[in-house]
């Protein structure tokens, strides 16, 4: 059987390593050994960082021995592969960057390492973070640890699978339209997207710059809170990072919801959810009420337009951001007879179908004659969506709704691009409004044709900069319901063999 250390929470590990009853080295060795045993089946990582991890563990043990307190001492960390880490390949899941070695480290990652984290691997993802299943990775397949025939979600699917499979205690994700929250829900995890600008994007390979936000994936709300507290805060290297003091969350967790008004979205109640899933969310809302919250109905009349708005704005921004991949300074180059042919061949060979689709739609939406009809109109719809939330938050403190409309689906189940886009229906409106939002395990359903219960996620969201009450509410719900503990990954059986 595997070492029980791998299942410990980040909070537990850090406590013990700081108390020197456990060393970062022991945790690191146990985690690497476990990764080597299971990752061929799960596929969380594009690269396992044996050397870097052991070197980091030695540094952490030395710092702790010298009397330093590190909030995440010895905590194994999965780094999504769109975040730079000096000297490691950083691919964004793309052939374009398959062999690119990052010459610097992303600020969010650097802060986690400085807080004591051990980088154990670079995690698979949908290419350039475009996708909701990890199936768009050009470099590997990642499976859901709760049912290996299903996807882990995406785009941060590798980090989610890694944390769910105990191949790391926490993971970094990036969320543009749901890419932390949806894989979190699919893998029985807490997935936390902070307010836009709370966590520095320096060193994150850009997808849609007005939406991209880094956040943690963890097995408990407390672990997600510790990770957020470590990675958040102003960074002069990212001019969109918020220049105001970070309100830490881990020391402000709550065990009840008395005095909290929870908004239930009227428009989402009429959605076409499976009855079993609808009942599960209804129960989640009753649980919030049982914790002392007051439920109020709120309206988000334009949330329904979120998907259409997002699928103009995000591709427009990506078509501009990904123009940098031209075969000149780094990454793939395919030679051509002149410079234009070199560009065209490089981008044809380096980008996968979903990335090409989004660049094309974005280029079209920004092109002469269509700019006002598509891009500007989407930006105006974005204003209306944000205003809806502002009105709703006049009568509530937190909004509760689904994180995803279904549990993790099987591979190749969403071959039509739009059916994949629909997976983000509930997470996109918050992204467009820049709001902090978190998904927390809220129960299990056995999908039709499946033989294993799969996790579902409840999404909570709060006004801009209200991470503290948001995380506190998520913690109260988690402690009261304890859904995550009900089943173990299918993986434990594999280890036991």
């Amino acid at each position: 059987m595997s070492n029980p250390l791998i299942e410990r929470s980040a909070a537990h590990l850090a406590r013990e390593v700081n108390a020197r009853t456990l060393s970062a080295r022991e945790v690191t060795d146990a985690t690497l050994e476990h990764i080597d045993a299971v990752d061929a089946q799960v596929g969380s990582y594009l690269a396992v960082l044996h050397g870097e991890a052991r070197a980091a563990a030695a540094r952490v043990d030395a710092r702790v021995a010298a009397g330093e307190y590190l909030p995440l001492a010895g905590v194994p960390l999965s780094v999504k592969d769109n975040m730079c880490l000096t000297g490691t390949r950083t691919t964004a899941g793309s052939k374009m960057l398959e062999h690119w070695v990052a010459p610097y480290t992303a600020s969010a990652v650097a802060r986690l390492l400085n807080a004591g984290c051990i980088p154990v691997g670079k995690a698979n993802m949908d290419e350039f973070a475009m996708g909701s299943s990890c199936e768009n990775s050009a470099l590997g397949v990642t499976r859901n640890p709760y049912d290996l025939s299903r996807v882990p979600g995406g785009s941060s699917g590798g980090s989610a699978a890694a944390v769910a499979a105990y191949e790391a205690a926490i993971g970094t994700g990036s969320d543009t339209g749901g890419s932390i929250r949806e894989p979190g829900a699919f893998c029985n995890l807490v997935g936390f997207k902070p307010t836009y600008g709370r966590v520095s994007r320096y060193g994150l390979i850009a997808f849609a710059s007005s939406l991209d936000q880094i956040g943690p994936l963890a097995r408990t709300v407390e672990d997600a809170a510790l990770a957020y507290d470590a990675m958040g805060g102003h960074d002069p290297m990212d001019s969109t990072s918020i220049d105001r003091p970070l309100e830490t969350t881990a020391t402000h967790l709550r065990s009840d919801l008395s005095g909290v008004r929870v908004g239930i979205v009227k428009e989402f109640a009429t959605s076409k959810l499976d009855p079993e899933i609808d009942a599960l969310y209804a129960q989640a809302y009753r649980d919030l009420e049982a914790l002392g919250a007051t439920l109020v109905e709120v309206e988000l009349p334009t949330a329904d337009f979120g998907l259409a708005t997002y699928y103009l704005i995000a591709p427009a921004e990506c078509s501009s951001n990904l123009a940098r991949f031209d075969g000149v300074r780094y990454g793939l180059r395919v030679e051509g007879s002149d410079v234009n042919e070199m560009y065209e061949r490089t981008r044809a060979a380096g980008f996968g179908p979903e990335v090409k689709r989004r660049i094309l739609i974005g280029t079209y939406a920004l092109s002469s004659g269509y700019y006002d009809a598509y891009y500007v109109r989407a930006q105006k719809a974005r204003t209306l969506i944000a205003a809806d939330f502002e009105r709703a938050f006049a009568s509530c403190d937190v909004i509760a709704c689904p994180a995803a409309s279904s549990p993790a689906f099987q591979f190749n189940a969403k071959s039509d691009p739009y059916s994949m886009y629909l997976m983000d229906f509930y997470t996109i409106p918050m992204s467009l409004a820049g709001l902090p939002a978190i998904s927390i395990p809220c129960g299990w359903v056995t999908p039709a044709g499946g033989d294993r219960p799969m996790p579902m996620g409840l999404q909570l969201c709060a006004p801009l900069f209200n991470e503290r009450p948001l995380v506190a509410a998520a913690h109260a719900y988690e402690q009261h319901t304890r859904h995550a503990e009900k089943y173990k990954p299918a993986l434990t059986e594999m280890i036991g063999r």
Partner: protein
Amino acid sequence: MSSEKIDVRYVAKLARIALTDDEVERFGAQLGDLLEHVDSLATLDTASVAATAQVVESRNVEREDVVTQCLDREVVLEAAPQRQGGFFRVPRIIAE
């Protein structure tokens, strides 16, 4: 806003992506499908609505004009597909 047929070849030229005939056909159909979905935005009354580019406060960020350390040139050039001395090498851009 109407979902007229996209000239995929023209858009791909703007985006500098070479497409196969098969891709032109497939992407054309898929993008047409997506545009039909986004056409729903036309039903929103946005006549008096301001466009949002950035949702949280943003302002111009400046710093003191002092020299700071940047990435090492050698390290950066090592990642280049082709280099010549201290430069990135590219195919000829200006015709002879």
